[in-house]
């Protein structure tokens, strides 16, 4: 037992006094064998052990600081390297934390689920829900404490002066209870306010309340009608950033179609109910609904998705995992560099350490001191790194990310791990008293160098792949002309423009005004531009196959477009025609893209003049066939099949105006705004930008990935080069005298240089080979993030390998050139 307790003491103390302590205790025990003695002794040892540790650590830290001060070049190099590594890792973790870890503001989020509609028969994995079915779920389920549905909705606020559009939600059911978020002031909607006619209420965000000076009880004009503010919500509801207003959906349930999937359904499970139980019940209700309303509900089921999985999709998760891994690798390279520095210095301090050992210094004590020194470097470097990140976050992401306890804890942990990692090698050397590194015996350092080259190779290849992806994406052929396009959104009030015809008239008037603006070439309006945030899909089949609708229908994207929209985008008309004035709306004339034609008529029949049966039983008539446009994402494997509806067919909430200009697109912005105001003064435009800006924004994720990985790769390359150069330079310095003698005896500098760099190059070569293997593995991991990079293309590997080879070659040769400057006579005379 005493032996166990003794382990609590610092090793040096234990070695010195362990035996004495044991003997004395045994003597005490012989005189007084009592439990009291044992207790007293245990307590005493615990206290004194803690005291000794603290004392020793303080001593070592003081000593380490003194040593570091005497060698400022070494100290600053080591600290800067650590700061770089910790800074990069912490910065990445800050982003990672922000996106993946930070708890959503919901109460007990683990009980929250999104109810996702699926239709396995039709191959649908994830779909929104119909409000009618949702109401039935609410009625019949017992496993949920509350259920709420919502739909994102842009809301026009008019009333006192300038019209403004804000991002909002329309909710149904116990939405506030599901989230478990209390309004800052006031209340959520009552059940009554969810009914049509009683819904003249609104909740606004704190931000909006402050900005416009609106308070509870006030009446404001929303989408053209008066609503009373009943509550003020926190700015962030955990769903979409920037939600400024919430209104009740207040649907007329009897008029809602069971098959009209348009809301997101959220639910909070009762305490103690498992997801499995809740799902079983939901599936039973789905089967009931299928029997009761077979036509719209055939095959529709649900799955329950945890709220976290819904908010953070797997793609985001993958991206951040990749970045964190890359930063980790960079930190590893930084560690290796510092370890190398320490080893080189341990070699230089060989004499000092030897003397101290000979003078009776305790080996354990010396080891402890070395580790403390490493930790001191790590802590200073880590603090500098964290400070850098703090500044960077404040400058680059104002209000975007916060450095909180988790981030600091992560940074501290990484710092300690780093310190131990790079402090290990030199400390072990002292402990085992092994021969300190000599000219030819540097296996550890060679291994470290090799691994640096390998890691740098992996990072450089990864960066090259992502940069290529980004470049390919930015100049990919999207199926339309992206230059000189102005885009802006607007949301016609559903009360004023409640029929397709009224909406169509609004669009026509706006377009007439806009087309008259000087510098405008053409203009058109659509429900969603390519790569927009919304996807709208429906099922359809060629009219002649209508009987097989249930089994063979094709899912297709659809858009509402005015005449002129496709021409403005520069989408090619392949066959048939676009709409023209005086089109007979009863025919329901539509335009489809080539991909949809291929899916509907695989045999290659001419689609123009044929009809398509839609899910609601109506048929539309194809008047034109146009080229494919990338609607959903640049990197999708096959083009999106798309059906274009004319704008008088149905009403849509938020429309996008697109204008092709002969001048800089944004220069016409004021004129366009004025034109729209002339048509409808209560019609704010928002999201005004150029198509190129819109596309760049949709590639923001790729851009961030590529940028960060490139920075990491560059830093790893730099650090790796410094590491290799350092080791070579050191080898030259150590063998200066030997080289001098050999050169005096007639050896050529080239030969000597070859000898110095030979091993280094072999090591780098081995590292490079390992790096190629690593990069290949990485490539398979990030395959889903790549676009336009040929699978198995050797080009990327060849280029990153040659960059690495060139850099390491230089790093080997440049320091070796010093050999040629050795003056044999001087070198020999010197010591």
């Amino acid at each position: 037992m005493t032996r166990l307790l003794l382990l609590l003491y610092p090793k040096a103390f234990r070695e010195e006094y362990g035996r004495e302590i044991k003997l004395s205790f045994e003597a005490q025990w012989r005189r007084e064998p009592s439990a009291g003695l044992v207790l007293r002794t245990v307590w005493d040892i615990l206290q004194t052990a803690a005291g000794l540790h603290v004392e020793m650590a303080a001593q070592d830290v003081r000593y380490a600081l003194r040593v570091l001060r005497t060698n400022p070049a070494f100290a600053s190099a080591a600290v800067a390297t650590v700061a770089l590594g910790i800074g990069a890792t912490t910065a990445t973790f800050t982003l990672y934390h922000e996106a993946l870890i930070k708890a959503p503001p919901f109460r007990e989020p683990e009980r929250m689920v999104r109810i996702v509609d699926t239709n396995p028969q039709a191959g649908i994995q994830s779909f929104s829900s119909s409000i009618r079915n949702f109401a039935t779920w609410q009625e019949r389920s017992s496993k949920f404490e509350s259920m709420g549905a919502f739909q994102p909705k842009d809301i026009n606020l008019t009333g006192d002066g300038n019209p403004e559009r804000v991002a909002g939600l329309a909710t149904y059911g116990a939405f506030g209870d599901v989230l478990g978020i209390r309004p800052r002031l006031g209340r959520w909607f009552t059940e009554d306010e969810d009914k049509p006619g009683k819904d003249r209420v609104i909740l606004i965000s704190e931000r909006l309340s402050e900005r416009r000076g609106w308070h509870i009880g006030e009446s404001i004009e929303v989408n053209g009608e008066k609503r009373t503010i009943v509550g003020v919500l926190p700015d962030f509801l955990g769903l979409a950033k920037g939600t400024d207003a919430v209104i009740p959906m207040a649907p007329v349930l009897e008029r809602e179609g069971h098959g009209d999937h348009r809301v997101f359904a959220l639910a909070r499970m009762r305490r103690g109910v498992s997801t499995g139980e809740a799902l079983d019940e939901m599936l039973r209700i789905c089967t009931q609904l299928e029997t009761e309303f077979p036509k719209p509900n055939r095959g529709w089921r649900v799955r329950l998705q945890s709220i976290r999985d819904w908010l953070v999709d797997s793609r985001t998760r993958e991206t951040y995992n990749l970045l964190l891994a890359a930063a980790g690798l960079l930190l590893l390279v930084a560690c290796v560099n510092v370890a190398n520095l320490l080893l080189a210095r341990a070699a230089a301090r060989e004499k000092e350490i030897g003397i101290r050992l000979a003078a009776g210094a305790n080996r354990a004590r010396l080891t402890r001191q070395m580790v403390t020194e490493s930790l001191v470097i790590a802590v200073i470097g880590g603090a500098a790194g964290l400070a850098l990140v703090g500044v960077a976050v404040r400058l680059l992401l104002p209000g975007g990310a916060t450095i909180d306890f988790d981030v600091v804890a992560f940074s501290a942990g990484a710092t300690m791990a780093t310190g131990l990692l790079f402090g290990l090698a030199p400390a072990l050397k002292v402990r085992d008293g092994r021969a300190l590194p000599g000219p030819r015996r540097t296996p550890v350092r060679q291994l470290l160098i090799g691994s640096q080259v390998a890691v740098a190779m992996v990072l450089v290849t990864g960066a090259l792949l992502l940069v290529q992806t980004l470049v390919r994406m930015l100049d990919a052929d999207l199926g339309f002309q992206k230059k000189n396009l102005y885009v802006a959104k607007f949301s016609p009030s559903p009360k004023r423009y409640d029929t397709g015809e009224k909406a169509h008239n609004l669009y026509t008037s706006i377009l007439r005004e806009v087309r008259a603006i000087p510098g405008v070439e053409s203009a058109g309006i659509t429900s969603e531009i390519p790569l927009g945030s919304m996807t709208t899909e429906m099922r359809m089949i060629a009219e002649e196959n209508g009987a097989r609708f249930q089994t063979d229908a094709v899912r297709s994207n659809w858009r509402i477009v005015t005449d002129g929209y496709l021409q403005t985008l520069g989408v090619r008309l392949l066959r048939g025609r676009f709409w023209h004035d005086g089109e007979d709306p009863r025919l329901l004339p539509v335009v489809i893209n080539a991909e949809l034609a291929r899916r509907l008529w695989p045999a290659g029949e001419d689609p123009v003049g044929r009809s398509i049966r839609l899910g609601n039983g109506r048929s539309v008539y194809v008047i034109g066939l146009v080229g494919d446009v990338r609607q959903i994402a640049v990197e999708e494997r096959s083009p999106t099949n798309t059906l274009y509806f004319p704008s008088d067919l149905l009403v849509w909430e938020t429309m996008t105006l697109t204008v092709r200009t002969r001048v800089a697109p944004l220069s016409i912005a004021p004129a366009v705004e004025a034109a729209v105001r002339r048509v409808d003064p209560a019609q704010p435009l928002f999201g005004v930008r150029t198509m190129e800006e819109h596309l760049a924004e949709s590639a923001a994720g790729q851009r961030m990935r590529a940028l960060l990985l490139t920075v990491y790769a560059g830093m790893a390359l730099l650090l790796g080069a410094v590491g290799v150069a350092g080791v070579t330079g050191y080898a030259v310095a150590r063998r200066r005298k030997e080289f001098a003698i050999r050169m005096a005896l007639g050896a050529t500098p080239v030969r000597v240089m070859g000898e110095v760099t030979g091993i280094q190059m072999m090591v780098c070569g081995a590292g490079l080979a390992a790096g190629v293997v690593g990069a290949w593995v990485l490539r398979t991991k990030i395959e889903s993030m790549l676009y336009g990079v040929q699978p198995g293309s050797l080009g990327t590997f060849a280029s990153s390998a040659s960059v690495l080879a060139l850099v390491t070659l230089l790093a080997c040769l440049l320091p070796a050139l010093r050999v040629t400057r050795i003056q044999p006579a001087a070198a020999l005379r010197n010591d």
Partner: protein
Amino acid sequence: MPLQEAAFHILVALADADKHGYAIMQDVTERTRGAVRLNVGTLYSTIKRLLETGWIEELDERPSEDDERRRYYRLTEVGRAEVRAEAARLEQMLLIAKRAGLAPRKV
């Protein structure tokens, strides 16, 4: 700086003769009539500090009758001066307390 109590007792125990650790513990217990009992942890961590400050030193050779080959310690001149100073300081404090009417009846 006042001397740590354990250090004071150890120095006093070494005043008349060189002793090993266990003998110091016994001596302290006897001298204080059981009021102060040093435990092994306090004893050796204090010895370590006293060695570092040079107030005591370790003997190179051990008395021949010692079969356990224990380590023996001796009070140095510096150490002796320190205990004296400490004792004087304590006396001074006692005097101050007495003048204030706070001294124990019998010392």
